């Protein structure tokens, strides 16, 4: 599949070559990190080195980093383990937050967003007054479908004044924008390895030094008792390298947003009808959610697939289901428009020629359907 154009980095990112090397090296070393013999201690050292690297990506202390089996598990752990009496979530959260909240057994309040995808702070404050204390507020740092960045500092100030705890799902934000856990002051922050070029099957919860956390998985007491189970040593080693590369890669954010802006401008030049979702807000440098009114997202995705371009009509998790994106609905878009959107997401390996291929394919489809109409 070498000649395919991959524009679905928000679903999963190709693994970086340096990560593959770290994983392979760690794979060939035997040892259970809980064993006290030399083989075990060396596995443990591998984990701790990676922990420091992941901590560095968000500026936190290594001991506040808890490894687990993925972003979904990380989000579920926080939603269930923060000891909250109520939950306030935004309507545009990832399914792993929304679904976990639904079954958490405590009252759940949903805060809506404006048409740019920014959380309504007035409504959030009203909900904070109403929700039983202590509440846990979960608002993602940046959205996976249209890339809008939330005013997390303002949200943190609000939650602080109402004694609520604050969780931010930074899975899509990591490696794309700067994250500084201490100055942000969130209680919980979650990350996923495979969205930043690391291996699949790994996530972390990063805690504020004072944040409580009840474990979801109990047993041998690994990860300071917060998450039992033998650690995925090789995967963690790879995650560490990916975190380091992501931190270094932040320097390329401007080049990436230039590439994305160029793509959007060229789409605009082709059609006045195209809608770029969340355009009025601050967005991740790599994400573009583009609607071609009147043409179903699935039809577009098929067209692009035939042209050798991989992208999706929403998040990968909902792409198998035939339903309208809850994110676009929450922003107030009509079902019709939401159904006609696709997501383009760039990554560390994207080239201007990928953008050219996309624009050409978009133009071909647009001209074909406009002629018919």
């Amino acid at each position, binding site marked *: 599949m070498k000649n395919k154009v991959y524009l679905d980095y928000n679903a999963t990112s190709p693994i970086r070559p340096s990560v593959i090397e770290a994983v392979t090296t760690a794979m060939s070393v035997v040892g259970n990190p809980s064993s006290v013999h030399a083989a075990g201690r060396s596995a443990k050292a591998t984990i701790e080195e990676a922990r420091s690297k992941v901590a560095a990506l968000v500026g936190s202390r290594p001991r506040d980093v808890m490894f687990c089996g993925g972003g979904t598990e990380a989000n579920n752990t926080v939603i269930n383990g923060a000891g909250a009496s109520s939950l306030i979530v935004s309507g545009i959260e990832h399914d792993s937050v929304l679904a976990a909240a639904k079954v958490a057994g405590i009252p759940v309040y949903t805060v809506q967003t404006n048409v740019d995808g920014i959380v309504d702070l007035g409504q959030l404050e009203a909900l904070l007054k109403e929700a039983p204390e202590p509440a846990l507020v979960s608002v993602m740092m940046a959205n996976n479908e249209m890339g809008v960045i939330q005013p997390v500092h303002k949200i943190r100030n609000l939650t602080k004044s109402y004694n609520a705890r604050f969780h931010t799902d930074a899975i899509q934000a990591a490696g794309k924008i700067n994250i500084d856990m201490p100055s942000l002051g969130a209680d919980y922050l979650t990350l996923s390895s495979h969205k930043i070029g690391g291996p699949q099957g790994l996530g972390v919860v990063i805690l504020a030094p004072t944040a409580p956390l009840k474990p979801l998985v109990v047993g041998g007491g690994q990860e300071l008792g917060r998450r039992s189970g033998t650690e995925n040593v090789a*995967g963690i080693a790879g995650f560490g390298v990916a975190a380091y590369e992501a931190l270094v890669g932040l320097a390329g954010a401007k080049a990436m947003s230039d590439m994305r802006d160029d793509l959007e401008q060229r789409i605009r030049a082709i059609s006045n009808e195209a809608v770029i979702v969340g355009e009025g807000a601050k967005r991740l440098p790599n994400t573009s959610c583009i609607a071609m009114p009147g043409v179903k997202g699935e039809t577009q995705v098929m067209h692009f697939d035939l042209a050798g371009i991989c992208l999706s009509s929403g998040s990968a998790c909902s792409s198998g289901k035939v339903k309208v994106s809850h994110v676009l609905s929450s922003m107030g878009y009509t079902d019709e428009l939401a159904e006609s959107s696709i997501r383009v997401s760039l990554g560390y390996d994207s080239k201007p020629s990928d953008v050219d291929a996309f624009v050409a394919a978009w133009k071909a489809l647009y001209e074909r359907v406009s002629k018919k109409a």
Partner: protein
Amino acid sequence: MKQPVYLDYQATTPLDKRVLDEMMPFFSEKFGNPHSSTHAFGWETDAAIDVAREKVANVISAQPEEIIFLSGATEANNLVIKGVMDVWGKKKPHLVTVATEHKCVLEAAYYCQRLGYNLTVLPVNTEGMIDLEQLEKVVTEQTALVSIMAVNNEIGVIQPMKDIGKIVKAAGALLHTDAAQAYGKIGLDVDDMAIDFMSISGHKVYGPKGVGALYKRAGRHTALTPQMSGGGQERGLRSGTQAPALVVGLGVAAEISHSEMGQEQGRLAKMADRFVSKLSKDLPGLVLNGSGKKRWSGNINLSFPGIDGDLLVSSVRNLAVSSGAACASAVSGPSYVLEAIGVSETNAKSSLRIGIGRFTTDEELDFAADELVTAINALGGLKA
């Protein structure tokens, strides 16, 4: 011969080179999110996961759709115990397990007990075996779930799963077995043994760490509450993007273990016998913990009366061995498993677990025996 010699196969096993080779493409060119149903990158990894599912199912005569991939046996054990009690506990508030289970089973069971469910922890005899008559008495129509491990991680004894299955089925309860140490090593048949749930670990069968599987018998009677909600992967029972590289690795590891099971059993049994006889000749007072017959040959748990196990471990620096379960090895104090089979505290403190497996050689074991004898003599020899 590479030193230190790795003799801790119960803690974890080396990754089989053949497994790593199959995994590699999924780290590089085959990187797609298996849930991306809109393009070929996703289809490719999704298909690979289905193939692995079939391989994992074959080992235990299950159907592929009865296999749920997750992050490891600890997660599988937590999911079954908490998940089943959550669904069935209102009608049937009773849960049964055994004193020598892995810590994650016991911890999950105590968690359920704190929620108000009734918990029975069955004792074992000095061989490490449960009493079937006692099991029959304890399991009633109030019992939702019985969780008994197939092969013990510390002493290697094999519980009679088929007899246990009959008793549990007759009482109308569900049977879960933690097969982390048994899967791919001894013959397991979920229908023949009437097993409803089985926990499987990747890194105990020469596969990668961070992946495991749960066998869940098809049907509504085995419903359980998922621990992880989200994108609805693994038929809604375990949300989260699957790790295709790890899942493929588990599949290949399962396939290899299955096809080489008989041969490996024979080889390990012979090697273990030779090792224990060699050691007993020089150290006549040593004790083999757990049943001598119904055991997995790869696990040799020995007590050296009069010797401090921690001192012994630290004086055989050329051997990677353990004085108990890996999870417990950072915690001092005698093993609760040895305590449960009635080993005295002093003997428990003098015990060592020697785990052998696919890549162990006679040469390594001869070296280990010599090292142990020298170290024990230097520490003053065995005291009866």
